[in-house]
């Protein structure tokens, strides 16, 4: 590749190559405090969809060790998003060392809350707000459950803020570092937030899962107990590698849902969401 960089995020080392300098330069700037891996577990390639598309209306094809044949190309101005999507794709399709949950997580006193739900449920925003409130940010995309210990391994990649959250977090975290505002992406306006120094420094320190939440943004405040069977089903759906892990995944997931209380929470706005998480945490 013409341009390349390497970074380790939690236990996963990435090598990212690109036909263009700009996405790699942005990654180097935003991931400046992350270590360079000794071994790259996953390779990401940002290549032109056709040779001439490197210069003429540049369009990025997402590639790497593993690919989705129908992944739509992105314009070069969305290069950072393309890199993040391609990194996530490699993890979702290729990672086998942990049970992967599509979830956000934050730690306090060695224990963590795991927030899982569909895109738009508020995982990224809530986890960023918890970080702003003093929690240690563990990740906003994947929580990695150790198959032997059941501990949650951090994967503190850039926080992907969308639409209304972009302005809200910029207002609430004036000292934080952000990537460029990316408008007109398939998910609307996106801006990446760099996790704080504490999250990066402690990214090899796991946490014990203590609370499992299924948030839903935009509804009146409500809390509902989620029983073990429902939590199990919802988490099999939230995991990209549960079926691939076989019995090890079954053991890890059944242990998680039998040991960790689960709640579905509805919240109307961000303040209410953070208050709900804090209230439920204090009630443990």
């Amino acid at each position, binding site marked *: 590749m013409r341009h390349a960089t390497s970074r380790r995020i939690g236990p996963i080392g990435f090598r990212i190559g690109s036909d263009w300098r700009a996405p790699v330069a942005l990654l180097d700037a935003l991931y400046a405090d992350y270590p360079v891996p000794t071994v790259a577990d996953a390779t990401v390639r940002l290549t032109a969809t056709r040779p001439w598309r490197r210069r003429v209306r540049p369009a990025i094809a997402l590639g790497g060790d593993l690919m989705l044949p129908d992944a739509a190309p992105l314009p070069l101005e969305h290069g950072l998003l393309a890199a993040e999507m391609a990194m996530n794709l490699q993890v979702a399709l290729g990672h086998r060392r942990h049970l992967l949950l599509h979830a956000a997580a934050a730690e306090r006193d060695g224990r963590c809350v795991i927030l899982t739900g569909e895109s738009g449920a508020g995982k990224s925003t809530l986890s960023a707000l918890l970080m702003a409130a003093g929690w240690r940010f563990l990740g906003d995309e994947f929580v990695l459950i150790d198959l032997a210990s059941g501990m949650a391994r951090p994967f503190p990649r850039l926080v992907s803020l969308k639409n209304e959250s972009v302005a809200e977090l910029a207002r609430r975290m004036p000292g934080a570092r952000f990537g460029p505002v990316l408008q007109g992406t398939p998910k609307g306006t996106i801006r990446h937030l760099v996790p704080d120094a504490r999250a990066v420094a402690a990214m090899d320190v796991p946490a014990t899962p203590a609370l499992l939440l299924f948030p839903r943004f935009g509804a009146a405040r409500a809390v509902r107990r989620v029983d073990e069977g429902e939590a199990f089903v919802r988490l099999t759906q939230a995991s990209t590698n549960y079926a691939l892990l076989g019995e090890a995944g*079954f053991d890890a997931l059944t242990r998680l849902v039998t040991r960790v209380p689960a709640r579905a929470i509805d919240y109307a706005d961000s303040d209410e969401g953070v208050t709900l998480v804090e209230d439920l945490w204090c009630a443990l």
Partner: protein
Amino acid sequence: MLRGPGEAAFVLRPLGALTALYHRPSATTHLLAPPAPEILRALAGGEMTEAALLAALARDYDLADPDPAALAARVEELVAAGLVERA
């Protein structure tokens, strides 16, 4: 005759009112409601007829009013899921 997976072929984990089952030969997960786990436990010891299965369940789980039709329906569900075979 009904034939279920042997004891070494599956793992059961109670999850509240339901039970998660991992079936090793097929590497699949099933979420079961009573009396499906009890049927599989009873069949793990060896083949038996539906009448013998009903008697075993009535004895082991203190069923007040064993219903052969209801049991047959649950067995049929396990057959459809590939967990029990009719020998």
